[in-house]
């Protein structure tokens, strides 16, 4: 890790005047004066230890007052401050009551120690855990290189959908739940302009720009994440599967949010994590459920549809049956 200086931001405005780059911009570069935001630091530290990031200044926003508030109201729904930790989210009463899949996804991520440090803002802005991306010695597409090492390499954890150029999967399993709830990311910039972006548009697929995973620019900060008040009759479930129970990155995770009218599903949202380079909604699967009663058969049909376009790589064919089983189970758990 390189030497760096540390700056404790006093306010959001202050942070935005100090910061001049993002983790995506700085990967593999040694810009003289790069200053990068840090919340919990759990992702930043790993990137720096590998030498992928060598910022000159760390702008710490972890202590900013108010950025860790979690508020819920019937009118406004949920507002989760960017600095809220995964542990706080997992334990929050309102979130457990109205957004159980979100609470579960936060509680299933990482380890207890990490959940106490990891913030939701940092979580959706973290970089992929593709082990080639994370290796300094592999100059892949995502680092400005000319190939994807995983495509014909060790790809057992990699993408089975949308895996054309870069086959990495997004690291955030919490985002899978946010996708299913149609969360919105609230971002403020140095001109004090605020924008609210649907989470699906927050992520950038490698086909668009392999060097970044989010739309975040150097002068932007996530202030909070909004989730609308669920319609009545909403039920949800989340399942994360790793290769090891204690802690593991997701090899497949699924969030399902169903708007039920009695036994009939009015509307379904089905999101998949660790399936593709960005978290994904499966419109096909959702379409299969809408207007139908939820049965084993229909759940299986939806799950199978979700995998219809799967194109597994040499070593991750197992993910297809795994997703089918998890999606089916999550639908049944939710209904």
């Amino acid at each position, binding site marked *: 890790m390189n030497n760096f200086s540390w700056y404790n931001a006093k306010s959001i405005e202050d942070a935005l005047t100090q910061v001049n780059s993002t983790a995506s911009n700085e990967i593999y570069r040694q810009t003289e004066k790069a200053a990068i935001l840090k919340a919990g630091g759990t992702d930043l530290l790993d990137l720096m230890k590998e*030498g992928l990031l060598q910022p000159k200044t760390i702008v710490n926003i972890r202590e900013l007052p108010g950025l860790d508030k979690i508020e819920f109201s019937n009118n406004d729904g949920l507002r989760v401050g960017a600095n809220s930790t995964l542990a706080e989210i997992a334990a929050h009463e309102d979130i457990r009551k109205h957004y159980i899949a979100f609470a579960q996804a936060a509680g299933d991520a990482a380890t207890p120690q990490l959940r106490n440090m990891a913030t939701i803002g940092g979580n959706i802005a973290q970089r992929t855990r593709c082990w080639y991306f994370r290796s300094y*010695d592999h100059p892949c597409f995502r680092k400005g290189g000319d190939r994807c090492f995983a495509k014909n390499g060790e790809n057992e954890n990699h993408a089975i959908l949308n895996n054309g150029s870069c086959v990495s999967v997004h690291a955030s399993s919490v985002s899978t739940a946010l996708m299913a709830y149609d969360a919105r990311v609230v971002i403020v910039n140095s001109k004090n302009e605020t924008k609210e972006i649907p989470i699906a548009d927050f992520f950038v697929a490698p086909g668009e720009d392999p060097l970044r995973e989010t739309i975040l620019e150097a002068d932007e900060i996530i202030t909070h994440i909004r989730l609308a008040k669920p319609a009545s009759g909403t039920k949800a479930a989340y399942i994360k599967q790793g290769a090891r129970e204690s802690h593991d990155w997701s090899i497949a995770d699924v969030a399902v949010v169903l708007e039920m009218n009695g036994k009939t599903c009015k509307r379904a949202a089905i999101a998949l994590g660790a399936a593709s380079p960005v978290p994904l909604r499966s419109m096909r699967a959702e379409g299969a459920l809408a207007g139908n009663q939820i049965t084993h058969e229909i759940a299986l049909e939806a799950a199978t549809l979700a995998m219809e376009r799967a194109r597994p790589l040499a070593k991750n064919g197992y993910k297809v049956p795994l997703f089918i089983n998890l999606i089916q189970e999550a639908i049944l758990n939710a209904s």
Partner: protein
Amino acid sequence: MDTRKEKFPYGIPDHNLTEIEREIPADEPPAWPVNDQLQEVGKRRIRVDARAKVTGEAKYTSDIRLPGMLYAKILTAKVPHASIRNINTQEAEKLPGVHAVHILRNEDNSYPDVKYVGQPVAAVAADSLDIARQATRMIQVDYLEKPFVIDVEQAMKPEAPLVFDAPIARQADGGDVGVVHDGSKGQGNLRGPSTSSFFGGPRGDLEAGFSQADVIVEQTYRTQVQTHVPLETHGVVIDWKPEGMTVYASTQSTKDVRDELADYFDLPKSRVRVICEFMGGGFGAKHSTSPYGPVAAILSQKTGRPVWLMLERKEEHLMAGNRPNSIHYLKIGAKKDGMLTAIQQRSHGTAGVALGAGVGRVAQILYECPNFATEQYDVLTFAGPGAAWRAPGNVQGAFGVEQAIDELAEKLNLNPLAYRDKIDQSEVRKVLRQRGAKQFDWSRWKPAGSSTGTIRKGLGVAQSTWPRFVDLDSTVEVKIYRDGAVEVRSGVQDIGTGTKTIMAQIVAEEFGLKTADVIVRIGDTIFPDAPGSGGSKVTGSITPPTRNAAYKAKMELFKQIAQQWQTDATKLVASNGMILHKDDASKKVSLKEALQRMRTGQITASASRSDDYGGFAQPWGLAHGHLGSVQFAEVTVNTDTGMVKVDRIVAAHSCGRPINLTQIESQINGGVIQGVSYALYEDRVMDEATGHMMNPDVDRYQIAYSMEIPAIEPIIVEEYPALSSTDAYGIGEPANIATAAAVANAVYNAIGMRMYEIPITPARILKALNHLDQ
């Protein structure tokens, strides 16, 4: 040699315990009765250093701080195969805080060829670790890259790039391959085959054996490369002064490290002192400090300062040794009644740039079979060197053999446990099977496929064997002091197994003291030579001389007391802190007072490991008999997710006379946990295109964490072979051998599909259940 005859307990209590007469050296102590008649030995005793460890008082190698000490960091190769054209260290040398830069060179001063990613190239010593790290990044290495091969099967092809084009001598540190035939032309990266072990060579006639067989199992079993992940990585602190070299090392053998460094630098052994007071774990790879130890020594010599060099986790994965993989072909034939007629074994494995990928002796000796032959090959690849790893070879071997035996049982329509009763001649394993089966409730076992649904349960059993190794170069000193202290000394190190504590227990037993009363000073080559902690040989090697030295010191004291009491020393006994006269209750003195009355300030007695009382099976210290182990596994397999959960392991073991039940259980727990970890999680993932390990940390290199640890129920069976004054043996390795095979058999029992390859990941289970080709 003066000898006398002595009667010893012999056999297994509650089974076949009798007495046997042995001829023993006259100066060795009388036979101990079985454990339930002893005070300290065979009991649960808290570790003598428990407090120091849990309070952080214990100083491990990485904690050592010496005045003026520098920190070193190694620069490792980033490419798997290259010759080095040039190394430029100018910039690094100019960095403030850098004291020395060292480049590794051949004897002729050329740069060594790079043969694996992670191979040391150069090193820096600096005021701080940060500076040293920064400096290594400033060293420019100009590589001329060359073709390489990572995959074992690819490496076996004649056209594969050669790892070595000349014969090599290097057998992996403590690895296992038997005799390697190296250097013959035209065999590419293949070395071998090894066709014999110290249990002999081939037996009988395979062809004839198979022609008598009614059923045959023929299969290939595959195991992965497992890297070492001790909590404390490899490392040394070396202080090389003109008068000699002092080495603090995280090592399994103070003696081996001393000899290694003395040889390397052509120093008299007496000028190298190696100290290892506390050890943060070692599973076989820490007998040697190669390649980092000599680097630290040179940096210390260059700077005239002590140098601290601990490997970082990534370096530990890459260069510090690993368990070679195996592609293990077995063909086993049996008659209708189950009796084995022939066993054929062929294996290939890679210890990377080293040798030592044999699969042990399990197929050769676990079951009696008149016809047996083995061919074990090493395949050189461009990867980090293998090293010994908790029962080298046998773990890989048992994974295949014990599944094949299950497959045979199934073909013969026999319960796998009953089948082993039929073909296994070992008396102790018979008892282990009985007691284990009872505890486990093996009667629940049903044929594979009986469990249905998404959550399937399975039961499995596997057994193993490990020799009783003894190092005769094991010496212990016992000193008793006028101030009341009783102390035991030896060069032997305690790698966390509890060696200090068992030595204290034995001396305490001899002197009628409590274990905590005995001072233990070990892990320093200024004390007498003692065995390395490998081969599970420490307990069997060090406890007899410990007892014998204590006995000698005690008899010296008794002589002085006996003179005062005008009686014979043999009439005295030490018990409960007192010295008593056997036949005269009026004569007694506390040990403390007796020590105060000594003629001299100290009495020192020393003893070395004597030959086994019944003689050795092999003259160089391979004892008669084996360490028995039978493990039972209960697993749950989720057919939706492919997750395997090991719910429970009943581990029945024998290790001669148990000395400390708590510590033995602790070893069994550790062995089982590592076995589960090996069976389900651990895997060194190598990228074949670039030669890099893709998971060189403890996040992506998966090991069993708390949730993965099953309920472990150890069963310890006392067995008295009457071979030494303690009759005690080790347990470290045996505890690890059978687990993966037991788990694999249980998984088969659960899902009716056999896993021929570990780790048994969700990917492999789902692939099997869904009949996927990839």
